[in-house]
């Protein structure tokens, strides 16, 4: 039972790491670097652009 749990722990770890690696590769292939690196500090994502547009 406990030996089985240990194998389950390794299997869960491997599955999650592989999934993250797969997603990481697919995102890097699907999106441009300009897009992925477009973040800027001090910019309000949810409300900033909207409120500026409304304000203008």
């Amino acid at each position, binding site marked *: 039972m406990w030996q089985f749990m240990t194998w389950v722990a390794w299997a*869960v*770890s491997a599955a999650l790491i592989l999934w993250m690696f797969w997603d990481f590769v697919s995102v890097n292939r699907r999106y441009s670097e300009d897009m*992925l690196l477009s973040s800027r500090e001090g910019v309000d994502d949810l409300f900033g652009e909207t409120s500026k547009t409304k304000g203008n």
Partner: protein
Amino acid sequence: MADQAIAQSQPKQLQLLKVLGPAHIWALGVGIVLVGEFMGWNYAVGKGGALGALIACWVIGLLYTCVAMIDSEITSTVAAAGGQYTQAKHMIGPLMAFNVGLYLVLAYTMLEAGDVQVAGQLLQIGAGNLGHDIPWEPYTVMTLAILAFINYRGVFMTLTINFVITAAAFASIIILVIGTQPWNPGAVLLHKDLLTGLPYGWIGVLASLHFGIWYYLGIEGTCQAAEEVRSPGRALPMGTMLGIITLLIAAALTWYVCCGLLPWEYLGWDNELAPLYDAAHVTGSPLLTVILFIGTLFSAIASANGCINDASRAWFSMGRDRYLPTWFGAVHPRYRTPFRSILFLIPIAAVFALYIPLAQVITFSILSGLLNYTFMPINMWKFRRMWPLGSIKRGFEHPFHPLPAIVLFVLCTVTFFAVYLGYGRQLLAMMAFYIIASCWFAFYRYRYVKRGDQFTMPWPRPAGY
């Protein structure tokens, strides 16, 4: 066609998601720290006795109250990921910012490594109590993988989970206090018999300050969520101040229960891993023992979860400003997390968790944290001089300036001396590491930094410039 559809559906700019509230900030700050109540602080008892550890609890509590007040004011204004790194960039300059960024990443990654190591070992102890011998390494790796996965998939889920398990861990301390009948002195708690004065005098009390840091180490981590909070001016000060109040209460209760149940010679012993769990064991109640086992495990998991969040934000910010390769400044288009920074730091934490002893890992974390706290008074002083009250909008104005900054600086200096007494070689090695890293930044990396691009806050020109 599919590529065109993807390109058209892409937003113009990817930002970290602003979805967090004050409860998440509390969960981040207290979640990182609360594990220090469950383990580590008790080495202060070994240095200065039970009363020495209580003095350390108060003195270091004052140090961290100053940290929380200063952080609350500056972060409610500098609402950007990176926390103190971003503050240093605006207030002092690039070299200080680079160093502070490294302090943060190292402090959180090392603490994360220690936390997952402890989580694995706790499961090993739990299985051992049931009569089964299991290795701890698979469970350490599994804990790290699950937490990395949660962090990768989004900050809201990450810190909501942290809120639940941190609240549960805090509740376990309260349940233990109630279970020991503090209203009936002598029935369960034996302070009269167990408190023995200062076994090593005041030099022991001074040495105990080093381990008093465990009670509160990491509360400054609330700043790292600044860019992901819906209302930074309100949520950050509220979450941080409620966090330090929670920790002051938890630290006092922890000391009170443990020192009333366990002799100081045992409590301060090097191999004493989980004093609250052992205190519950001594009461003889199986229910309390199980509750405190779960509380200890939850506190370690919550701390590692918060540390993954904070270390990745600091690393991400440095990448975004070109202090490190810009590759690290990427945001996941779907989950809006700094996914490359998260994945890059996980293997480093895993190596330290699996191969470096807990005391060494935590000492690296404490030293980096202490260097960060020493920078804060200078930061606060410059912040008030460059942008005096009224010149920019602040979410929180801390009272009695410059007294908290002066107190913080003095206490950091005293604590450095305390650390030097016990871990002088590690302290000097750490300083050498930061000097070498600073040389690398100043003579090589700084040429890639675009100075103007780092400052995007809509602030007025600072006074005197």
